[in-house]
Protein backbone atom coordinates (compact mmCIF):
# COMPACT_ATOMS: atom_id res chain seq x y z
CA UNK A 1 0.00 0.00 0.00
CA UNK A 2 2.80 2.34 0.97
CA UNK A 3 6.37 1.89 -0.15
CA UNK A 4 9.34 4.20 0.28
CA UNK A 5 12.43 3.38 -1.74
CA UNK A 6 15.64 5.07 -0.58
CA UNK A 7 13.78 8.27 0.16
CA UNK A 8 15.74 11.33 1.24
CA UNK A 9 14.44 14.78 1.89
CA UNK A 10 16.66 17.80 2.28
CA UNK A 11 14.94 21.10 3.00
CA UNK A 12 16.65 23.95 1.20
CA UNK A 13 17.00 25.84 4.46
CA UNK A 14 18.87 23.18 6.40
CA UNK A 15 22.02 21.20 5.77
CA UNK A 16 21.04 18.01 7.59
CA UNK A 17 18.52 15.89 5.68
CA UNK A 18 15.10 15.57 7.34
CA UNK A 19 14.91 12.06 5.87
CA UNK A 20 18.04 10.13 4.99
CA UNK A 21 17.77 7.14 2.65
CA UNK A 22 14.63 5.66 4.19
CA UNK A 23 13.16 2.47 2.73
CA UNK A 24 10.05 1.04 4.33
CA UNK A 25 6.89 -0.73 3.28
CA UNK A 26 3.43 -0.85 4.86
CA UNK A 27 0.99 -3.52 3.71
CA UNK A 28 -2.67 -3.02 2.99
CA UNK A 29 -4.70 -3.15 6.18
CA UNK A 30 -1.72 -2.72 8.48
CA UNK A 31 -1.58 -0.47 11.54
CA UNK A 32 1.87 1.09 11.89
CA UNK A 33 3.33 3.52 14.41
CA UNK A 34 5.94 5.95 13.20
CA UNK A 35 7.93 6.96 16.24
CA UNK A 36 10.97 9.01 17.06
CA UNK A 37 11.84 12.16 18.96
CA UNK A 38 10.78 15.57 17.82
CA UNK A 39 12.64 16.56 14.65
CA UNK A 40 13.36 12.98 13.59
CA UNK A 41 11.43 13.34 10.36
CA UNK A 42 8.01 11.79 11.09
CA UNK A 43 5.95 14.69 9.79
CA UNK A 44 8.19 15.03 6.77
CA UNK A 45 7.58 11.40 5.88
CA UNK A 46 3.81 11.82 6.14
CA UNK A 47 3.97 15.04 4.11
CA UNK A 48 5.70 13.16 1.31
CA UNK A 49 2.90 10.57 1.32
CA UNK A 50 0.20 13.15 0.63
CA UNK A 51 2.38 15.11 -1.73
CA UNK A 52 2.53 18.16 0.47
CA UNK A 53 6.17 17.98 -0.48
CA UNK A 54 8.30 15.93 -2.87
CA UNK A 55 11.32 13.78 -1.97
CA UNK A 56 14.77 15.06 -2.85
CA UNK A 57 15.62 11.57 -4.01
CA UNK A 58 14.07 8.12 -3.93
CA UNK A 59 10.54 7.09 -4.76
CA UNK A 60 7.33 7.22 -2.74
CA UNK A 61 4.56 4.81 -3.71
CA UNK A 62 1.01 4.94 -2.41
CA UNK A 63 -1.28 2.31 -3.91
CA UNK A 64 -0.23 2.56 -7.54
CA UNK A 65 0.73 6.20 -7.50
CA UNK A 66 4.28 7.37 -7.78
CA UNK A 67 3.51 10.23 -5.47
CA UNK A 68 6.60 12.33 -6.08
CA UNK A 69 6.14 12.23 -9.83
CA UNK A 70 2.43 12.99 -9.80
CA UNK A 71 1.33 15.93 -11.95
CA UNK A 72 -0.08 18.77 -9.87
CA UNK A 73 -3.56 18.38 -11.24
CA UNK A 74 -3.67 14.71 -10.18
CA UNK A 75 -2.75 15.44 -6.57
CA UNK A 76 -6.38 16.05 -5.50
CA UNK A 77 -7.27 12.53 -6.65
CA UNK A 78 -4.53 11.07 -4.48
CA UNK A 79 -5.61 13.06 -1.45
CA UNK A 80 -9.24 12.07 -1.96
CA UNK A 81 -8.19 8.46 -1.45
CA UNK A 82 -6.23 9.26 1.72
CA UNK A 83 -7.42 10.59 5.04
CA UNK A 84 -5.30 12.87 7.20
CA UNK A 85 -5.52 13.75 10.85
CA UNK A 86 -3.27 16.25 12.59
CA UNK A 87 -2.37 17.32 16.07
CA UNK A 88 -4.10 20.67 15.50
CA UNK A 89 -7.29 19.10 14.01
CA UNK A 90 -7.44 21.47 11.01
CA UNK A 91 -11.18 21.83 10.89
CA UNK A 92 -12.75 24.55 8.76
CA UNK A 93 -13.61 27.13 11.42
CA UNK A 94 -16.73 28.57 9.83
CA UNK A 95 -18.40 25.27 9.07
CA UNK A 96 -20.37 23.13 11.46
CA UNK A 97 -19.27 19.64 12.47
CA UNK A 98 -21.57 18.07 9.87
CA UNK A 99 -20.45 20.52 7.17
CA UNK A 100 -16.81 19.79 7.90
CA UNK A 101 -17.40 16.10 7.38
CA UNK A 102 -19.64 16.73 4.37
CA UNK A 103 -16.91 18.83 2.77
CA UNK A 104 -14.72 15.79 2.12
CA UNK A 105 -17.63 14.31 0.17
CA UNK A 106 -18.54 17.51 -1.68
CA UNK A 107 -14.99 17.74 -2.91
CA UNK A 108 -15.22 14.38 -4.62
CA UNK A 109 -18.59 15.31 -6.10
CA UNK A 110 -20.80 12.97 -4.09
CA UNK A 111 -24.50 13.75 -4.64
CA UNK A 112 -26.40 15.60 -1.96
CA UNK A 113 -28.65 12.75 -0.90
CA UNK A 114 -25.66 10.46 -0.39
CA UNK A 115 -24.01 13.13 1.74
CA UNK A 116 -27.17 13.49 3.79
CA UNK A 117 -27.19 9.81 4.72
CA UNK A 118 -23.46 9.15 5.02
CA UNK A 119 -22.50 12.08 7.26
CA UNK A 120 -24.80 11.14 10.16
CA UNK A 121 -23.58 7.53 9.95
CA UNK A 122 -19.97 8.58 10.32
CA UNK A 123 -20.76 11.05 13.09
CA UNK A 124 -22.49 8.20 14.84
CA UNK A 125 -19.38 6.06 14.43
CA UNK A 126 -17.26 8.69 16.21
CA UNK A 127 -19.93 9.25 18.90
CA UNK A 128 -20.74 12.81 17.86
CA UNK A 129 -24.27 12.29 16.55
CA UNK A 130 -25.64 14.91 18.96
CA UNK A 131 -23.14 17.58 17.98
CA UNK A 132 -23.62 17.75 14.22
CA UNK A 133 -24.57 21.41 14.28
CA UNK A 134 -21.84 22.64 16.64
CA UNK A 135 -19.12 24.92 15.37
CA UNK A 136 -15.51 23.68 15.82
CA UNK A 137 -14.89 26.40 18.39
CA UNK A 138 -17.58 24.86 20.58
CA UNK A 139 -15.86 21.47 20.79
CA UNK A 140 -13.38 19.97 23.25
CA UNK A 141 -10.04 18.79 21.86
CA UNK A 142 -11.13 15.18 21.88
CA UNK A 143 -14.36 16.00 20.08
CA UNK A 144 -12.58 18.12 17.48
CA UNK A 145 -10.18 15.27 16.80
CA UNK A 146 -13.05 12.86 16.38
CA UNK A 147 -14.62 15.23 13.83
CA UNK A 148 -11.29 15.31 12.00
CA UNK A 149 -11.17 11.52 12.02
CA UNK A 150 -14.76 11.36 10.77
CA UNK A 151 -13.83 13.70 7.92
CA UNK A 152 -10.72 11.67 7.09
CA UNK A 153 -12.66 8.42 7.11
CA UNK A 154 -15.96 9.45 5.53
CA UNK A 155 -15.02 8.58 1.97
CA UNK A 156 -13.43 5.29 2.96
CA UNK A 157 -9.81 6.12 2.20
CA UNK A 158 -7.20 3.53 1.32
CA UNK A 159 -4.88 4.96 3.93
CA UNK A 160 -5.42 7.02 7.04
CA UNK A 161 -2.43 9.09 8.12
CA UNK A 162 -2.36 10.56 11.61
CA UNK A 163 0.37 12.97 12.67
CA UNK A 164 0.49 13.03 16.48
CA UNK A 165 -3.31 12.94 16.72
CA UNK A 166 -3.16 12.66 20.50
CA UNK A 167 -0.46 15.27 20.95
CA UNK A 168 -2.88 17.84 22.35
CA UNK A 169 -5.06 15.45 24.34
CA UNK A 170 -5.03 14.02 27.84
CA UNK A 171 -4.39 10.25 28.23
CA UNK A 172 -8.01 9.32 28.71
CA UNK A 173 -9.18 11.18 25.61
CA UNK A 174 -6.20 9.79 23.72
CA UNK A 175 -7.31 6.28 24.58
CA UNK A 176 -10.68 7.05 23.02
CA UNK A 177 -9.02 8.27 19.86
CA UNK A 178 -6.88 5.12 19.69
CA UNK A 179 -9.97 2.93 20.04
CA UNK A 180 -11.48 4.82 17.12
CA UNK A 181 -8.38 4.43 14.95
CA UNK A 182 -8.29 0.72 15.74
CA UNK A 183 -11.89 0.39 14.76
CA UNK A 184 -11.18 2.15 11.46
CA UNK A 185 -8.21 -0.13 10.90
CA UNK A 186 -10.47 -3.16 11.38
CA UNK A 187 -12.58 -2.00 8.41
CA UNK A 188 -9.50 -2.71 6.29
CA UNK A 189 -8.10 0.81 6.16
CA UNK A 190 -4.33 1.04 6.40
CA UNK A 191 -3.39 3.33 9.29
CA UNK A 192 -0.05 5.07 9.80
CA UNK A 193 0.25 7.09 12.96
CA UNK A 194 3.19 9.27 13.92
CA UNK A 195 3.58 9.72 17.66
CA UNK A 196 6.06 10.02 20.47
CA UNK A 197 3.59 8.87 23.09
CA UNK A 198 5.27 5.87 24.71
CA UNK A 199 2.22 4.72 26.64
CA UNK A 200 0.06 4.47 23.55
CA UNK A 201 2.63 2.58 21.53
CA UNK A 202 3.36 0.17 24.35
CA UNK A 203 -0.30 -0.59 24.97
CA UNK A 204 -1.14 -1.32 21.34
CA UNK A 205 1.59 -3.78 20.43
CA UNK A 206 1.51 -2.96 16.75
CA UNK A 207 4.15 -2.49 14.14
CA UNK A 208 6.66 0.19 15.13
CA UNK A 209 8.84 2.06 12.64
CA UNK A 210 11.34 4.27 14.39
CA UNK A 211 13.14 7.23 12.89
CA UNK A 212 16.21 8.82 14.39
CA UNK A 213 17.58 11.99 12.89
CA UNK A 214 15.98 11.12 9.56
CA UNK A 215 17.29 7.56 9.40
CA UNK A 216 15.33 4.36 9.83
CA UNK A 217 16.42 3.13 13.27
CA UNK A 218 14.10 0.19 13.90
CA UNK A 219 11.20 -1.71 12.37
CA UNK A 220 9.45 -4.13 14.78
CA UNK A 221 6.34 -6.07 13.94
CA UNK A 222 4.87 -6.01 17.44
CA UNK A 223 6.98 -3.38 19.06
CA UNK A 224 7.07 -1.18 22.10
CA UNK A 225 8.39 2.34 22.26
CA UNK A 226 11.60 2.08 24.19
CA UNK A 227 13.45 -1.19 23.65
CA UNK A 228 16.99 -1.24 24.84
CA UNK A 229 19.25 -0.12 22.06
Amino acid at each position, binding site marked *: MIRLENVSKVYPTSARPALDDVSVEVERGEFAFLIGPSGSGKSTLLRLLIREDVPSSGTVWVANWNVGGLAGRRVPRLRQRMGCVFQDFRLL*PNKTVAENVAFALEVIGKPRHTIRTVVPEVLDLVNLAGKADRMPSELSGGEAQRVAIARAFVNRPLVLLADEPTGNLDPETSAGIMTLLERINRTGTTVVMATHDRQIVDSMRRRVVELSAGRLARDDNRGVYGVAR
Partner: protein
Amino acid sequence: MMFVWREAFAGLRRNLTMSIAMVITTAISLGLLGAGLLAVRTIDRTEDLYYSLIAVQVALDEPTSADDRDCSSPVCTGLRGELEANPLVASVEYESRDDAFARFQRIYAGQSILQLVRPQSLPATLRVTMADPLRGEEIVTQYTGRPGVRNVVDQRSTVADLFSFLGSVRNATFGLAVVQALAALLLISNTIQLSAFTRRTEVGIMRLVGASRWYTQVPFLIEAVVTGVVGAVLATGGLVLGKIFFLDRLMSGRLLANTIPPIGMSDVLGYVGPVLVVVGAVIATATGYVTLRLYVRT
Protein backbone atom coordinates in the same frame (compact mmCIF):
# COMPACT_ATOMS: atom_id res chain seq x y z
CA MET B 1 -21.89 24.04 -6.84
CA MET B 2 -23.75 25.59 -3.90
CA PHE B 3 -20.45 25.62 -2.07
CA VAL B 4 -18.72 28.00 -4.45
CA TRP B 5 -21.58 30.51 -4.42
CA ARG B 6 -21.77 30.47 -0.64
CA GLU B 7 -18.03 31.02 -0.44
CA ALA B 8 -18.11 33.82 -2.99
CA PHE B 9 -20.78 35.79 -1.17
CA ALA B 10 -19.14 35.12 2.18
CA GLY B 11 -15.97 36.57 0.63
CA LEU B 12 -17.76 39.67 -0.62
CA ARG B 13 -19.33 40.22 2.79
CA ARG B 14 -16.06 39.66 4.63
CA ASN B 15 -14.33 42.53 2.82
CA LEU B 16 -17.45 44.63 2.58
CA THR B 17 -15.75 48.02 2.26
CA MET B 18 -13.37 46.72 -0.37
CA SER B 19 -16.25 45.11 -2.21
CA ILE B 20 -18.18 48.38 -2.24
CA ALA B 21 -15.17 50.33 -3.44
CA MET B 22 -14.61 47.72 -6.12
CA VAL B 23 -18.23 47.88 -7.30
CA ILE B 24 -18.29 51.70 -7.35
CA THR B 25 -15.06 52.02 -9.28
CA THR B 26 -16.21 49.39 -11.75
CA ALA B 27 -19.57 51.13 -12.11
CA ILE B 28 -17.97 54.52 -12.79
CA SER B 29 -15.62 53.05 -15.33
CA LEU B 30 -18.38 51.17 -17.12
CA GLY B 31 -20.69 54.20 -16.89
CA LEU B 32 -18.11 56.32 -18.67
CA LEU B 33 -17.62 53.61 -21.24
CA GLY B 34 -21.39 53.54 -21.74
CA ALA B 35 -21.55 57.32 -22.11
CA GLY B 36 -18.81 57.07 -24.72
CA LEU B 37 -20.73 54.41 -26.60
CA LEU B 38 -23.85 56.58 -26.55
CA ALA B 39 -21.80 59.50 -27.86
CA VAL B 40 -20.50 57.37 -30.72
CA ARG B 41 -24.00 56.27 -31.56
CA THR B 42 -25.26 59.85 -31.50
CA ILE B 43 -22.43 60.99 -33.71
CA ASP B 44 -23.19 58.30 -36.25
CA ARG B 45 -26.84 59.24 -36.32
CA THR B 46 -26.14 62.93 -36.52
CA GLU B 47 -23.83 62.31 -39.43
CA ASP B 48 -26.45 60.24 -41.21
CA LEU B 49 -29.01 62.92 -40.57
CA TYR B 50 -26.85 65.78 -41.73
CA TYR B 51 -25.15 64.23 -44.69
CA SER B 52 -28.49 63.52 -46.31
CA LEU B 53 -29.46 67.16 -45.90
CA ILE B 54 -26.11 68.71 -46.46
CA ALA B 55 -25.41 70.82 -49.50
CA VAL B 56 -23.14 73.54 -50.77
CA GLN B 57 -25.13 76.75 -50.87
CA VAL B 58 -24.29 79.18 -53.65
CA ALA B 59 -26.00 82.38 -52.47
CA LEU B 60 -26.81 84.81 -55.26
CA ASP B 61 -26.27 88.55 -55.13
CA GLU B 62 -28.94 91.09 -54.31
CA PRO B 63 -30.16 91.89 -57.87
CA THR B 64 -30.77 88.23 -58.69
CA SER B 65 -32.24 87.46 -55.27
CA ALA B 66 -34.65 90.34 -55.56
CA ASP B 67 -35.97 89.65 -59.04
CA ASP B 68 -35.45 86.05 -60.07
CA ARG B 69 -38.27 83.77 -58.90
CA ASP B 70 -37.41 80.71 -60.97
CA CYS B 71 -33.75 81.00 -62.05
CA SER B 72 -34.63 82.37 -65.42
CA SER B 73 -32.12 85.25 -65.43
CA PRO B 74 -29.01 84.70 -67.60
CA VAL B 75 -26.70 84.88 -64.56
CA CYS B 76 -28.64 82.18 -62.74
CA THR B 77 -29.15 79.84 -65.71
CA GLY B 78 -25.45 80.20 -66.56
CA LEU B 79 -24.31 79.23 -63.05
CA ARG B 80 -26.84 76.45 -62.83
CA GLY B 81 -25.90 74.91 -66.16
CA GLU B 82 -22.24 75.01 -65.28
CA LEU B 83 -22.84 73.39 -61.87
CA GLU B 84 -24.99 70.65 -63.35
CA ALA B 85 -22.23 69.81 -65.79
CA ASN B 86 -19.67 69.52 -62.95
CA PRO B 87 -18.85 65.86 -62.17
CA LEU B 88 -18.60 66.65 -58.42
CA VAL B 89 -22.25 67.64 -58.37
CA ALA B 90 -25.20 65.32 -58.07
CA SER B 91 -28.04 67.80 -58.42
CA VAL B 92 -28.84 71.50 -58.21
CA GLU B 93 -31.99 73.10 -56.87
CA TYR B 94 -32.99 76.71 -56.97
CA GLU B 95 -34.47 78.31 -53.86
CA SER B 96 -35.84 81.79 -54.40
CA ARG B 97 -35.94 84.49 -51.71
CA ASP B 98 -39.64 83.77 -51.12
CA ASP B 99 -39.03 80.02 -50.84
CA ALA B 100 -36.20 80.66 -48.40
CA PHE B 101 -38.38 82.89 -46.25
CA ALA B 102 -41.18 80.29 -46.25
CA ARG B 103 -38.76 77.58 -45.11
CA PHE B 104 -37.37 79.88 -42.44
CA GLN B 105 -40.86 80.47 -41.11
CA ARG B 106 -41.45 76.74 -40.99
CA ILE B 107 -38.29 75.93 -39.08
CA TYR B 108 -38.57 78.67 -36.50
CA ALA B 109 -42.36 78.64 -36.13
CA GLY B 110 -43.36 80.36 -32.92
CA GLN B 111 -39.86 81.56 -32.06
CA SER B 112 -38.87 85.16 -31.50
CA ILE B 113 -36.14 85.12 -34.14
CA LEU B 114 -38.96 85.24 -36.75
CA GLN B 115 -39.70 88.83 -35.81
CA LEU B 116 -36.19 89.88 -36.64
CA VAL B 117 -35.90 88.43 -40.10
CA ARG B 118 -37.34 90.05 -43.20
CA PRO B 119 -37.39 88.36 -46.60
CA GLN B 120 -34.94 91.00 -47.83
CA SER B 121 -32.19 89.64 -45.58
CA LEU B 122 -32.36 86.18 -47.16
CA PRO B 123 -30.62 85.52 -50.48
CA ALA B 124 -31.84 83.27 -53.25
CA THR B 125 -29.61 80.19 -53.42
CA LEU B 126 -28.59 77.37 -55.66
CA ARG B 127 -28.55 74.33 -53.35
CA VAL B 128 -25.90 72.02 -54.69
CA THR B 129 -26.09 68.39 -53.57
CA MET B 130 -22.63 66.88 -53.90
CA ALA B 131 -21.94 63.53 -55.48
CA ASP B 132 -19.21 63.29 -52.82
CA PRO B 133 -20.20 65.39 -49.77
CA LEU B 134 -16.59 65.56 -48.62
CA ARG B 135 -15.44 67.62 -51.63
CA GLY B 136 -17.68 70.66 -51.10
CA GLU B 137 -14.64 72.88 -50.57
CA GLU B 138 -13.76 72.54 -54.26
CA ILE B 139 -17.08 74.10 -55.27
CA VAL B 140 -16.52 76.82 -52.69
CA THR B 141 -13.18 77.81 -54.27
CA GLN B 142 -14.44 77.54 -57.83
CA TYR B 143 -17.52 79.77 -57.35
CA THR B 144 -16.56 82.28 -54.67
CA GLY B 145 -16.26 85.74 -56.28
CA ARG B 146 -17.97 84.77 -59.51
CA PRO B 147 -20.30 87.39 -61.00
CA GLY B 148 -23.76 87.18 -59.50
CA VAL B 149 -22.53 85.14 -56.50
CA ARG B 150 -22.74 86.68 -53.02
CA ASN B 151 -20.93 83.89 -51.21
CA VAL B 152 -20.56 80.10 -51.19
CA VAL B 153 -21.00 78.10 -48.01
CA ASP B 154 -20.23 74.43 -47.55
CA GLN B 155 -22.70 73.41 -44.85
CA ARG B 156 -20.48 70.51 -43.99
CA SER B 157 -17.82 72.81 -42.58
CA THR B 158 -20.44 74.40 -40.31
CA VAL B 159 -21.56 71.03 -39.09
CA ALA B 160 -17.96 69.89 -38.77
CA ASP B 161 -17.66 72.00 -35.61
CA LEU B 162 -20.52 70.11 -34.06
CA PHE B 163 -18.96 66.81 -35.03
CA SER B 164 -15.60 67.72 -33.66
CA PHE B 165 -17.29 68.78 -30.42
CA LEU B 166 -19.14 65.48 -30.16
CA GLY B 167 -15.94 63.67 -31.09
CA SER B 168 -14.01 65.26 -28.26
CA VAL B 169 -16.80 64.47 -25.81
CA ARG B 170 -16.50 60.86 -26.92
CA ASN B 171 -12.72 60.80 -26.66
CA ALA B 172 -12.75 62.39 -23.22
CA THR B 173 -15.27 59.88 -21.87
CA PHE B 174 -13.33 56.97 -23.32
CA GLY B 175 -10.11 58.35 -21.85
CA LEU B 176 -11.66 58.66 -18.41
CA ALA B 177 -13.22 55.24 -18.81
CA VAL B 178 -9.80 53.70 -19.47
CA VAL B 179 -8.25 55.36 -16.42
CA GLN B 180 -11.15 54.29 -14.24
CA ALA B 181 -11.02 50.81 -15.70
CA LEU B 182 -7.37 50.59 -14.69
CA ALA B 183 -8.29 51.59 -11.15
CA ALA B 184 -11.09 49.02 -11.16
CA LEU B 185 -8.75 46.27 -12.39
CA LEU B 186 -6.16 47.00 -9.71
CA LEU B 187 -8.84 47.12 -7.06
CA ILE B 188 -10.35 43.81 -8.16
CA SER B 189 -6.93 42.20 -8.31
CA ASN B 190 -6.05 43.54 -4.90
CA THR B 191 -9.28 42.43 -3.32
CA ILE B 192 -8.87 38.93 -4.66
CA GLN B 193 -5.35 38.75 -3.26
CA LEU B 194 -6.58 39.99 0.08
CA SER B 195 -9.48 37.58 0.01
CA ALA B 196 -7.17 34.69 -0.82
CA PHE B 197 -4.75 35.75 1.91
CA THR B 198 -7.40 35.92 4.62
CA ARG B 199 -8.55 32.47 3.62
CA ARG B 200 -5.19 30.82 3.06
CA THR B 201 -5.45 28.47 6.07
CA GLU B 202 -8.93 27.44 5.09
CA VAL B 203 -7.94 26.90 1.47
CA GLY B 204 -4.94 24.89 2.68
CA ILE B 205 -7.23 22.59 4.64
CA MET B 206 -9.52 22.19 1.65
CA ARG B 207 -6.56 21.23 -0.50
CA LEU B 208 -5.54 18.62 2.10
CA VAL B 209 -8.96 17.05 1.92
CA GLY B 210 -8.50 16.77 -1.83
CA ALA B 211 -10.12 19.90 -3.24
CA SER B 212 -8.62 20.91 -6.57
CA ARG B 213 -7.02 24.29 -7.05
CA TRP B 214 -9.90 25.14 -9.37
CA TYR B 215 -12.48 24.22 -6.72
CA THR B 216 -10.92 26.44 -4.10
CA GLN B 217 -10.36 29.33 -6.50
CA VAL B 218 -13.71 29.53 -8.27
CA PRO B 219 -15.24 31.46 -5.36
CA PHE B 220 -12.69 34.23 -5.87
CA LEU B 221 -13.45 34.30 -9.56
CA ILE B 222 -17.17 34.54 -8.83
CA GLU B 223 -16.50 37.41 -6.45
CA ALA B 224 -14.85 39.24 -9.32
CA VAL B 225 -17.59 38.44 -11.82
CA VAL B 226 -20.34 39.49 -9.42
CA THR B 227 -18.49 42.77 -8.95
CA GLY B 228 -18.29 43.28 -12.71
CA VAL B 229 -21.94 42.51 -13.32
CA VAL B 230 -23.24 44.52 -10.38
CA GLY B 231 -21.01 47.40 -11.50
CA ALA B 232 -22.45 47.17 -15.00
CA VAL B 233 -26.01 47.17 -13.71
CA LEU B 234 -25.31 50.22 -11.54
CA ALA B 235 -23.63 51.93 -14.47
CA THR B 236 -26.65 51.29 -16.69
CA GLY B 237 -28.93 52.63 -13.96
CA GLY B 238 -26.73 55.71 -13.74
CA LEU B 239 -26.98 56.24 -17.49
CA VAL B 240 -30.78 55.93 -17.37
CA LEU B 241 -30.92 58.55 -14.62
CA GLY B 242 -28.46 60.74 -16.52
CA LYS B 243 -30.63 60.49 -19.61
CA ILE B 244 -33.86 61.33 -17.79
CA PHE B 245 -32.60 64.13 -15.56
CA PHE B 246 -29.87 65.65 -17.69
CA LEU B 247 -29.88 64.78 -21.37
CA ASP B 248 -33.62 64.87 -21.90
CA ARG B 249 -33.80 68.36 -20.34
CA LEU B 250 -30.82 69.56 -22.30
CA MET B 251 -32.20 68.23 -25.56
CA SER B 252 -35.67 69.67 -25.04
CA GLY B 253 -34.14 73.15 -24.82
CA ARG B 254 -34.46 75.50 -27.80
CA LEU B 255 -30.86 75.28 -28.80
CA LEU B 256 -30.44 71.53 -29.23
CA ALA B 257 -34.01 70.43 -29.88
CA ASN B 258 -33.58 69.90 -33.61
CA THR B 259 -29.81 69.75 -33.80
CA ILE B 260 -28.93 66.36 -32.36
CA PRO B 261 -31.04 63.22 -32.61
CA PRO B 262 -32.21 62.26 -29.11
CA ILE B 263 -30.91 59.20 -27.24
CA GLY B 264 -33.74 56.76 -26.65
CA MET B 265 -34.32 54.53 -23.63
CA SER B 266 -33.82 51.57 -25.98
CA ASP B 267 -30.29 52.82 -26.74
CA VAL B 268 -29.47 52.69 -23.03
CA LEU B 269 -31.26 49.50 -22.03
CA GLY B 270 -31.21 47.56 -25.27
CA TYR B 271 -27.70 48.35 -26.48
CA VAL B 272 -25.36 49.92 -23.94
CA GLY B 273 -26.67 48.00 -20.90
CA PRO B 274 -26.02 44.51 -22.30
CA VAL B 275 -22.67 45.62 -23.71
CA LEU B 276 -21.61 46.89 -20.28
CA VAL B 277 -22.71 43.68 -18.54
CA VAL B 278 -20.70 41.57 -20.97
CA VAL B 279 -17.66 43.86 -20.84
CA GLY B 280 -17.85 44.04 -17.04
CA ALA B 281 -18.12 40.28 -16.64
CA VAL B 282 -15.38 39.49 -19.16
CA ILE B 283 -12.90 42.02 -17.81
CA ALA B 284 -13.54 41.01 -14.20
CA THR B 285 -13.13 37.33 -15.04
CA ALA B 286 -9.92 37.97 -16.92
CA THR B 287 -8.54 40.07 -14.07
CA GLY B 288 -9.54 37.42 -11.56
CA TYR B 289 -8.01 34.63 -13.58
CA VAL B 290 -4.72 36.43 -14.12
CA THR B 291 -4.52 37.40 -10.45
CA LEU B 292 -5.11 33.83 -9.30
CA ARG B 293 -2.55 32.53 -11.78
CA LEU B 294 0.14 35.02 -10.87
CA TYR B 295 -0.34 35.83 -7.22
CA VAL B 296 -2.31 33.12 -5.45
CA ARG B 297 -0.26 30.01 -4.79
CA THR B 298 -2.45 27.89 -2.58
